[in-house]
C-alpha cells in the first residue's frame, strides 16, 4: 500500500470492482480498492440465487459467480486491494483528496488520492425506519440480514415466517426460507402493486403458493421473548389501516424488506450534494458528483435491481475518473465553471464549437509555459464555449417520474450518447411513451409496453439529440401514445 494514489475506490462490490477495472483499462496505474468486509464481492456474496449477468455476460449466473468473474479479472491487474478496512472520512482538497481509514492489517492510515470513486452500496431500512407498534421481541430481521445468516453464516432464522414488503430481497428470501424447510405464511405489501421484479413474484411466491397481500401492512407485532403473532390490516388509499380488516398470523419471525437506502454518510460529510429523491449524490453525465474528482456508481448512487446495470455504470465512472486524473479536461472545465457562475452569458444560443477543435485549443493552452498567456488562452476558450451553448443541462421531471440519474448533463462532455436511468412513480400498464421535451418540443421519445416502479428504466440520449436542446432544462415524463 502506498501513501498516494491516483484513484481510491471505496467499496469492493460489483460497482467498485467494475470502476477499478475500467480506470485501469483507461490508463491509471496507482489504484486502491478499500473494502470493509474480509472479501471482495459486496452484496453478491450472499445473493446465491441466479439471475445475474444475462445482459452483461450473456449468461445467467449466481451472485457469487458474477462476483468471481470480476475478482478474477482484478487479480490479473496491478490494482491494490485492502480488505477488512473501513474508510472513515473523505477530506476533499483542491489538489487531490485525503482519506482516513482503519484497517485490520495497517491500523489507522491517512492516504491521498487525486480521484475517488464512491461505491459503498446501500443498506436496508429497519423496523425503526417504518415504526411498527408492538413488543421488542426477538425474531425481527431485515431480509438482507437474514440472507447473510442463512447463506453465508449458516444459521436458520425461524420456522414460521411472514415477510413485510415485496422488494426483491424479501421475495428471494421467501423462497429461500421455504427451500430450507420453513413455512412462509404471507408476503404483505402496503402499496397496491408489488415492489420487486415480476420474475421474482412468479418464481419466489407463485411457485411456492405463498399469498401476496397487496394494500396491506403489519400493524402490530406481539410476543414476549420471541415473536408469537402479527396483525395484518388492509390500508386505504392514504395508507391508513382500515378497521375490521385484521388478520392474525401465528409466526415466530418477521422479515422486513422495506427498501434500501444508499449509504452516503461519507459522501455527505465530504460535502457531496445529495438528491433527496435517490438519497444518492447528484451526478453529471459521467458519474462525477458536485465535488470535482469525486465520482459515484452502483447502489450508493441509486438503488439498482440489476447488477448488469451496476457494472455498466461503474465502468463509465472508472473511465471518467481516469480522464479526470490524466488531466484531459478538468482544468479547462473548472475555468468554464467559474465563468458560468460569474458572467452573465447567453446560454440560449444553439451554435457551438467543434469539440475536436476545442480539445485541440485546450491542449495548446495547457502546453503554454507562460502563466499569463495560458490563463488568457483558457479564458478565451471558455468564453467561446460558454457563448456557444448551454453549458449544463438539468434533467427535470414531472409527477410521472420519481427520479433520474444523472441529474445533470454537460453536453460537450458527452461523446456519442448518455444513458439516463429513471423510475416511474406509478405502474404504467398500457403502452406508453417516455418523452424528453424542452419547452413544447419533443427532443426524444421511447415506447414501452408497460413500466413498473420496481423496475428501473434506461434510455439513451444521443449527442445529436442533446445538441438540439434549446435552453438549459430537459423535461422527462411518461405520456400516452397518441
Amino acid at each position, binding site marked *: 500500500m502506498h501513501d498516494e494514489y491516483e484513484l481510491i475506490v471505496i467499496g469492493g462490490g460489483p460497482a467498485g470492482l467494475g470502476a477499478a477495472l475500467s480506470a485501469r483499462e483507461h490508463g491509471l496505474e496507482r489504484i486502491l480498492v478499500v473494502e470493509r468486509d474480509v472479501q471482495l464481492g459486496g452484496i453478491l456474496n450472499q445473493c*446465491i440465487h441466479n439471475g445475474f449477468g444475462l445482459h452483461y455476460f450473456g449468461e445467467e449466473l449466481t451472485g457469487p459467480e458474477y462476483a468471481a468473474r470480476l475478482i478474477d479479472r482484478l487479480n490479473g491487474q496491478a490494482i491494490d486491494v485492502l480488505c477488512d478496512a473501513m474508510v472513515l472520512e473523505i477530506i476533499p482538497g483542491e489538489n487531490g483528496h485525503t482519506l482516513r481509514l482503519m484497517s485490520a492489517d495497517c491500523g489507522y492510515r491517512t492516504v491521498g488520492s487525486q480521484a475517488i470513486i464512491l461505491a459503498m452500496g446501500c443498506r436496508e431500512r429497519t423496523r425503526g425506519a417504518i415504526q411498527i407498534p408492538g413488543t421488542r421481541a426477538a425474531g425481527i430481521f431485515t431480509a438482507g440480514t437474514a440472507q447473510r445468516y442463512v447463506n*453465508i453464516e449458516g444459521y436458520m432464522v425461524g420456522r414460521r415466517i411472514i415477510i413485510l414488503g415485496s422488494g426483491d430481497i424479501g421475495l428471494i428470501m421467501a423462497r429461500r426460507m421455504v427451500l430450507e424447510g420453513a413455512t412462509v405464511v404471507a408476503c404483505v405489501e402496503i402499496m397496491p402493486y408489488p415492489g420487486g421484479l415480476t420474475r421474482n413474484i412468479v418464481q419466489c411466491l407463485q411457485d411456492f403458493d405463498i399469498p401476496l397481500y397487496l394494500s396491506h401492512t403489519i400493524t402490530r407485532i406481539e410476543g414476549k421473548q420471541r415473536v408469537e403473532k402479527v396483525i395484518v390490516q388492509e390500508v386505504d388509499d392514504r395508507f391508513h389501516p382500515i378497521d375490521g380488516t385484521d388478520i392474525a398470523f401465528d409466526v415466530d419471525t418477521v422479515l422486513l424488506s422495506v427498501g434500501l437506502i444508499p449509504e452516503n454518510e461519507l459522501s455527505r460529510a465530504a460535502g457531496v450534494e445529495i438528491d433527496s429523491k435517490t438519497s444518492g449524490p447528484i451526478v453529471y453525465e459521467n458519474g462525477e458528483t458536485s465535488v470535482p474528482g469525486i465520482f459515484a456508481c452502483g447502489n450508493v448512487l441509486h438503488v439498482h435491481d440489476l447488477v448488469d446495470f451496476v457494472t455498466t455504470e461503474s465502468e463509465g465512472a472508472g473511465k471518467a475518473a481516469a480522464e479526470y486524473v490524466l488531466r484531459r479536461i478538468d482544468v479547462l472545465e473548472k475555468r468554464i465553471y467559474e465563468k458560468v457562475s460569474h458572467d452573465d452569458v447567453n446560454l440560449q444560443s444553439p451554435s457551438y464549437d467543434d469539440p475536436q477543435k476545442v480539445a485541440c485549443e485546450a491542449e495548446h493552452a495547457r502546453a503554454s509555459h507562460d502563466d499569463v498567456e495560458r490563463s488568457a488562452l483558457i479564458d478565451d476558450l471558455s468564453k467561446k464555449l460558454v457563448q456557444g451553448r448551454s453549458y449544463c443541462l438539468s434533467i427535470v421531471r414531472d409527477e410521472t417520474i420519481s427520479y433520474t440519474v444523472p441529474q445533470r448533463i454537460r453536453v460537450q462532455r458527452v461523446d456519442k450518447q448518455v444513458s439516463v436511468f429513471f423510475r416511474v412513480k406509478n405502474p404504467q400498464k398500457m403502452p406508453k411513451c417516455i418523452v424528453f421535451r424542452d419547452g413544447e418540443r419533443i427532443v426524444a421519445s421511447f415506447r414501452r409496453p408497460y413500466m413498473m416502479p420496481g423496475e428501473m428504466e434506461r434510455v439513451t440520449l444521443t449527442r445529436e439529440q442533446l445538441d438540439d436542446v434549446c435552453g438549459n432544462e430537459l423535461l422527462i415524463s411518461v405520456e400516452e401514445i397518441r
Partner: protein
Amino acid sequence: MKEYVCIICPRGCHLAVDEENDYAVTGNGCLRGAAYGREEAMHPTRIVTSSVRVRSRIHPRCPVKTDKAIAKSDIMKAMLLLDDVELSPPVRRGDVVIASLFGGEANFIATRDIDE
C-alpha cells in the same frame, strides 16, 4: 392462450403461449423467452440454488446450483439431498457436488471458490 412472465432474465417480458397453435410464443424480448414460454406451458422446470456445509476457516457454507433446470416438482426432493453433503476446501466453482440428480442430466455444482 396461457399467459406467463418470463423469468429467464430480470426484464420479465409478458409472454402469451398459444397451445392451439403449436405453443407459439408472443411478447418475448428474445429467443430464450420463446423457449421458456413453450417449456413453461408444457413441463415447467427451474434452476435450484442453495448452499451446503463446508469445512472452511472463513465460511461454513458453500453456495451451489443445479447446472441445468430440473422439474419444478422435484425441487423439494433435490433440496433434501443437500442436507447430507459436507465439502472440504479447496472448492472450485463448477466442482460437482451431487452428480446426475435423479439419474438425469442435471448436477449440483459449487458456485464459488473456497481456498481454505
